[in-house]
């Protein structure tokens, strides 16, 4: 990879208030947000930000609500006009661009993916994906051909004529991504694109994005408030606090050499057992039995799938227990002609009271729950009890010993392969939101 800088942000400020110049004073450089508001009546969303982003880099901007990360990514396409400073993109300062130059820049250099997707509800998936090209004035056949390619890339073939409302959150964000990719931008700007998605789908989208960047070699600027996501995706991470960039570095550098107490606090829990959550480890169960099926059907399913056991769920996908092939075979042998549903047979056949875990539980806790249990640990939604995925004990152990990043990446590769094949749960219109989304929404409102 070349080391050419595609974006250079130099001394960038964004100050909200009547007299921004007062906020630029050197005395204010170290002031806290509250002090600055008191002394100058201004709020600085960005304070002297300096960042260089290389071509082809996956660059993460990370911070909590109100840290200025969303403002920063918006200045990169001048959706927010900075108060002071320069943003050189391919050597040209976009802060000084004229209206026409700016339109041209937005049409050809950047494309953005939004937290709440930013789709056009009155346009079909195809029209949404082709919108960036339509704005450029491209002819209908040509732009639809390109949009079609982008839709195939994100796995939405066959959904062209649907409207966004009909799609699940994950699929809507795929449309958002396709719309951005169709433009063939040099820089892909992503503003917390996955924070509104279910954990499993979020992880899958992350994996696919990594893969996509591997093939397309785009420069990606990605905003997130989720440390796990940042560590997983980023080539380099910039951590922001109150408009300041407090540290820029690779995930390793951030973890091992935190620049100050703030970053240290931030990453102190960053030993894998403390920050790796169930949602980032879980997989789709390869086979589920339904509690209305009979013992014969269940046995047949297990044999077909070459599995020795499977979880049993009810109509609402709540886990009711676990069935092993051995016990089933025994039961079928002892009760020939028995047609009762698993739900009715229950006690003898279905193993109850399995240890479960929630999507946000960390490795340490999953390990404690799993204990001696030889079976995978089901991850269930804390409120609805719905089965979200399973964490295999092997995965738990692997993650605990794989401090070595190489091993981890191999494992990730392997999981990516698995994930590619199961698009089907994406087709579920599940839209249950994460607790994180609230926080993210608040931030959106603030800015």
């Amino acid at each position: 990879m070349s080391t050419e800088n595609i974006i250079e942000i130099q001394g960038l400020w964004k100050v909200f208030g009547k007299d921004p110049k007062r906020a630029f004073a050197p005395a204010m450089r170290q002031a806290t947000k509250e002090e600055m508001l008191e002394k100058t009546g201004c709020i600085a969303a960005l304070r002297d930000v300096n960042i260089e982003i290389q071509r082809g880099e996956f660059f993460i901007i990370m911070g909590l609500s109100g840290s200025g990360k969303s403002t920063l990514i918006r200045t990169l396409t001048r959706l927010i006009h900075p108060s002071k400073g320069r943003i050189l993109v391919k050597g040209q300062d976009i802060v000084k661009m004229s209206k026409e130059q700016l339109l041209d820049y937005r049409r050809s250099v950047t494309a953005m993916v939004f937290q709440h997707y930013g789709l056009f509800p009155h346009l079909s998936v195809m029209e949404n994906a082709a919108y960036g090209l339509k704005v450029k004035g491209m002819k209908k056949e040509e732009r639809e051909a390109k949009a079609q390619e982008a839709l195939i890339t994100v796995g939405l073939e066959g959904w062209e004529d649907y409207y966004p409302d009909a799609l699940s959150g994950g699929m809507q964000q795929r449309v958002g991504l396709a719309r951005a990719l169709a433009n063939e931008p040099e820089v892909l700007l992503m503003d917390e694109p996955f924070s509104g998605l279910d954990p499993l789908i979020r992880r899958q989208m992350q994996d696919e994005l990594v893969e996509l960047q591997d093939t397309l070699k785009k420069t990606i600027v990605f905003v997130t408030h989720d440390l796990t996501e940042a560590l997983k995706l980023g080539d380099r991470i910039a951590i922001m606090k109150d408009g300041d960039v407090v540290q820029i570095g690779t995930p390793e550098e951030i973890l091992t050499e935190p620049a100050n107490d703030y970053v240290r606090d931030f990453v102190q829990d960053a030993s894998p057992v403390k920050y790796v959550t169930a949602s980032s480890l879980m997989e789709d169960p390869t086979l589920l039995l339904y509690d209305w099926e009979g013992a014969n059907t269940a046995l047949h399913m297990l044999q077909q799938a070459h599995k020795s056991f499977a979880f049993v769920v009810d109509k609402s996908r709540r886990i009711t227990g676990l069935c092993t092939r051995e016990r089933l075979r025994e039961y079928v042998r002892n009760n020939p002609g028995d047609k009762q549903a698993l739900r009715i047979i229950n006690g003898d056949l279905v193993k109850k009271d399995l240890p479960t875990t929630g999507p946000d539980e960390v490795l340490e806790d999953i390990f404690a729950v799993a204990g001696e249990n030889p079976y995978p640990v089901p991850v269930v939604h804390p409120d609805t009890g719905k089965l979200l995925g399973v964490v295999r004990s092997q995965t738990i152990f692997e993650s605990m010993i794989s401090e070595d990043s190489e091993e981890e990446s191999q494992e990730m590769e392997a999981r990516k392969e698995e994930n590619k094949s199961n698009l089907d749960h994406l087709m579920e219109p599940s839209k249950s939101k994460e607790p994180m989304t609230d926080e993210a929404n608040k931030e959106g409102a603030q800015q």
Partner: protein
Amino acid sequence: MEFPELDFLSVAKWVDSAMGWLLTNLDGFFRGIKAVILQVTLAFEWIFLTLPWFVWILFVIAGGRFLLKSWKKGLVFAAMLFFVGSVGYWELAMRTMALVSSSVLFALLIGIPLGISMARRDGFERVMKPLLDAMQTMPSFVYLIPALMFFGLGRVPAMIATLIYAVPPVIRLTNVGIRTVDPEAVEAARAFGATKRQILFDVQLPLARPSIMVGINQTTMMALAMVVIGSMIGAKGLGMEVLLAINRIEVGRGFEAGLSIVFLAIIIDRLTHSFAIDKKNAS
């Protein structure tokens, strides 16, 4: 103690002298406007009176069937319209409709662009809001006087008064509709390099459509109400019948004419309202 009167604060005098100045200096301007409006109104009158009554009845049946997806509603509308004709008010009803249609046409031509400008500029919104409040709270009869002075008797002043009275809802709802469009959709369009014009036509207007349609519906209903009052300055129509009935204390006649107006109102309301319902649910 008597209330202190401030002689120098004489709003009535100012308005009167302003009127006098306008009348002497802008006479040609008003005559031009009058000519244009008269032609449009006459064209509508021609359409409404030339098409035979059964064609209109078929229209409302078709409207019920295709806009509201209900034969039954279409047939009820037809019965209502038939009633209006059968009590002898067909021609007057059509004249009323012509006046309403031309008022609404001008109201939309003026109102939608104004609503768009209001949505784009906060300053303009701040100026317009009290103005619109005033236009709606002012007793509608008040508009008749200046309209009468500028344009004389007849259809045109009635239409102008109707226009002023009926235009606020479409302005307001266009403004609100555009302002309540999902800001992220607008931001997305901006981020892809859309011009203001592209954002307006690709994103804002289509998404504000249901709100704008409600505005059009409201404007139409208010126009119908005002056209009746407009008969006081000589606009022929159903209102005139009501007025005559009041003067002669003919309760039955007044009731017939009143009922005809109500029926027209129901038909227009239901049919125009159907546009405000989200079309996507149907597809």
